[in-house]
């Protein structure tokens, strides 16, 4: 692999890569789905979302205390403040069931995305 890169070429490739990423950022907005946290529970507990499509989950915390939206299967972990709203982008998801939970109140805050 020695001498594969001419002087500065590798770092310039990085710069081009990032510029390309930035240009792709103007893609169409994904469909938005609302998920509410109320009395330390998710409402609804199951959400059906289109498979193979990026989704924007709007997590609305109606409780006065913070919660954390967490899902190992979705690879997401994000705190939402009391009375706050956060976007959580997931997908594209293959058809299936993707559990999530509220890490601050995991005994009651349980839910799942159903991609179909």
């Amino acid at each position, binding site marked *: 692999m020695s*001498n594969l*890169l*001419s002087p*500065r070429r590798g770092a310039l490739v990085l710069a081009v890569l990032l510029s390309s990423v930035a240009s792709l*950022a103007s893609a169409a907005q994904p469909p938005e789905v609302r998920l509410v946290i109320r009395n330390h529970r998710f409402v609804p507990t199951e959400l059906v979302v289109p498979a193979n499509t990026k989704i924007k989950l709007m997590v609305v915390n109606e409780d006065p205390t913070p919660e954390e939206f967490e899902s190992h299967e979705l690879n*997401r972990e994000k705190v939402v403040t009391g009375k706050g709203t956060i976007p959580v982008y997931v997908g594209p998801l293959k058809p299936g069931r993707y559990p999530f939970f509220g890490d601050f109140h995991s005994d009651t805050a349980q839910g799942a995305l159903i991609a179909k």
Partner: protein
Amino acid sequence: MSAITPRIVARVLFLACLLPASHAAFAGAADAVYTPTVEQGETEFELRGGYRDFDGAPDEHAFVFDIGYGVTNRWRTEAVLEYAAEGGEPGKLEALEWENVFVLTEPGKHWMDVGLLAEYEHSFASGPDEVKFGPLFQKQIGSTVANLNFRFKREVGSGASTDTELDYRWQLRWIGNEALEWGVQGLGELGTVDHLGEGDWHSAGPALFGVKRLHGRDKLRYNAAVLAGLDHAAPDAAVRFQIEYEMY
């Protein structure tokens, strides 16, 4: 923080290309792969280490202990203490480092997640300190999460070289059983910025990852890898591990 776009990071990297080249700086035995993710309010205690075996050269091992905190959901800061030894020599504390991870893009929103690593290392030995920075990339395709880090390293202070070196780390992780996931990791050096490809080396190998949930919201996160050298200049074999205790 939302004003730092990938375009800005690209311009910073372009300017880094113009920095005069440097010497020294290589991926240490205890190096890790970073992800552009931060948990606000999380305190973490981390221990990582590694051993490298070289054919015809002293082996080396290193340990790193650090304490970190998620200040916001876009910035984590850590204090890092490094210990290392070479050959059969006694190990010693090598450096104290201030490390920062910045999340530049909303996870999952764009085609790729982008972050930035920025470090300042103060060496306990006489000699210059070191500044390190570079982009962190993450891309998820289905149940596969790919990460790629680049790191520019440059000495600062009295006696500092005018060179800037570039190294990299990467990993693939397949999302599965939370307690034990498989993947691959790799790392290497690309040489100095104005002589890329000269003195480079590369290694890769299997890795495993996992999370163990403890009482309350605490977690134990771990990963380890066995890396084989892919060219003559690389360590013949290397083992590395990382354990993090995360608490709120």
